[in-house]
């Protein structure tokens, strides 16, 4: 390749994709945690 610097465009693209997917996973993780807490609270409320 003539211009070596151009490869970093690919790096930037891949990094973006990866970060995007990770953020997505994080948001799912948080949602699940919230749901689990809700159910825990409902259960302890029902027990009382």
């Amino acid at each position, binding site marked *: 390749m003539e211009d070596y610097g151009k*490869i*970093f465009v*690919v*790096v930037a693209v*891949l*990094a973006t994709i*990866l*970060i995007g997917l*990770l953020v997505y*996973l*994080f948001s*799912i*993780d948080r949602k*699940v*945690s919230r*749901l*689990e807490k809700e*159910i825990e609270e409902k259960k302890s409320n029902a027990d009382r």
Partner: protein
Amino acid sequence: MIRKYWWKILAGVLLLYAIVAGFIVHVPDTMIRETMRNLFYHVGMWFGMFAMLIIGFIYSIRYLVRFREQEDLVAVEAVNVGIVFGILGIITGMIWANFTWGAPWVKDPKLNGAAVGLVIYLAYMILRGSIPDVHKRAKVSAVYNIFAFVLWIVFVLILPRLAGESIHPGKEAPPVLPMHLDPSMRMVFYPAVIGWILLGIWILTLRVRIRKLNDLMT
């Protein structure tokens, strides 16, 4: 442990490192040149799949020991994620092969073994789909998982032998074993593999948690 974030962030960091460093690190001058960098990603998929299937195997055994439904859930979701890794591995392999060898598929023991391995686990999913009763399904699929996994391992370990016996060297790609790997590539490869495996475990835990929530709702 499942809800902690540190190892998930670690996974993200490792994978980011794998992407950035993967392009910067020096690759030895072989026939396939720059595409060798695919090692960090395509082979990472295989290691991820391997790890997932091992987890599935372990949890299937644990299920047969104690019959706790949680462990069957982990086993099936591990196989699920393993299948995803496997499909990605095969697709990326086909893309790479097309550029390197001119065709997306060749009759090679390693490739055939990979394909058959995937079909074995797809059969597992079909088996599960055919048993409506929860306990029976868990028990029968655990037995099949253990049986299939051991056979799968035997076959995957046979492949190097088969490749050694045949004229075709197995793969014209660079050696896939870390021992043969150029030391500078190793520095990216190991962290990348760990990153992929951690990512797989993360997705696995999420799937299991979502399943449990679903079961609680119904």
